């Protein structure tokens, strides 16, 4: 069921109806020579972490060091 939903979304993305929004879903990547590659977005380097923001170090998790 989950895979079917993914398929459906991917097809909509390919048709240009939906923007690429599903970070973990498989997408179609067009190579420079026009070859279509189907793969996980996470494994294609240009998409790596494109959607996350760096977290602020806002918390002291362990007090194993002392700042100068």
């Amino acid at each position: 069921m989950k895979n079917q939903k993914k398929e459906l979304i991917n097809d909509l993305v390919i048709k240009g109806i939906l923007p690429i929004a599903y970070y973990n879903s498989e997408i179609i990547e067009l190579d420079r020579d026009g070859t279509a590659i189907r793969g996980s977005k996470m494994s294609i380097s240009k998409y790596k972490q494109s959607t996350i923001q760096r977290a602020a170090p806002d918390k002291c998790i362990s007090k194993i060091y002392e700042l100068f």
Partner: protein
Amino acid sequence: MNYFSLFSSCVLTQGFRNSCLVDLERATYCSIPNELYQIIKLKFNIALDDIEQGFDKEDFQVIKEYLSFLEDKKFIYFHLEKQELAHDISKDQFSNCHKIEDLIFDLKSPESFYKNISKISADIEKIQLRYFCPVSITELEDMIEILRLNGHTNVEVILKHHSDNSENGYIDLFHKYKLISRVCVMDFFEDKFILPNYIIALKQPLVSHKQCGVISEKLFYPNLRTYLSSKSCNSCLSKKVSIDVEGEIKNCPSMQESFGNIRDTSLEGVLRQQEFLKFWNITKDEIEVCRDCEFRYICTDCRAYREDPFNDYSKPLKCGYNPYTNKWENWSESPLKHKAIHYYGLQDFG
């Protein structure tokens, strides 16, 4: 009439002798005498005329100097008419969607990382990797890549410096992976910020988990998250899970009690054990001495090393602050702590 109000991001905490005024937005704070706390505790629309009537001329002059200092430091502002009450953020509640907020993963070699990483789910807000061995940038990158592929988005690294690593190597790795929120390189040649606020290098050696638990003003986090969570739960152990160098799952690697080994126990299973949760809700307001400390909502706690090892509510052993005198002293030199220092075997970690 002249009025003054605290900026809405400012909160007050009363201690035994002093109080602490914190601006949670600017992450800055100052200590004020409790007499001044009594005057400004209403926070909003405080009339200067009312204060003047309650004090003699000399005292009022001193109060005005204090207020001028607070205005200068941007904790308060003056206004001519009463203003609509601002939202009081000190009454807000902190909530977080993650079942586990922090996971401390202690490692004595990269192999122990590979052996156990598949057992750690991605639904953890932040992973802190603590390598008690020198790790090269290449080894580190391989491990960070696995965390990225597993869907983790917030990783903090503490490691022993490897002689092959360069400062630029650490910077390149940090820029390459947005999931790295902070790197602390220990056993380095000098104390310095390789990248301010993000990559910190320290001469201090990384030897053992027994180094942990130091309460220091330099490790205060005067922000909204720390403030609100400290009021409602334990500021060190709440929603925290740790895996020590032997794979034992504990509240904190410095604690004795294990709730199973990661090779045959799931983290979810540990979270179902009531005993594992017993420290999560101990607030600073319940801890001896801390409950009288003006810094109690911006520092962190330590339940692993306590002044009285047999009392769950005892003051953190490695805190050298005395809220009854407002003085910081070296915790390891206090004669009152020697018994506990020997009990925990911390003689070499002062």
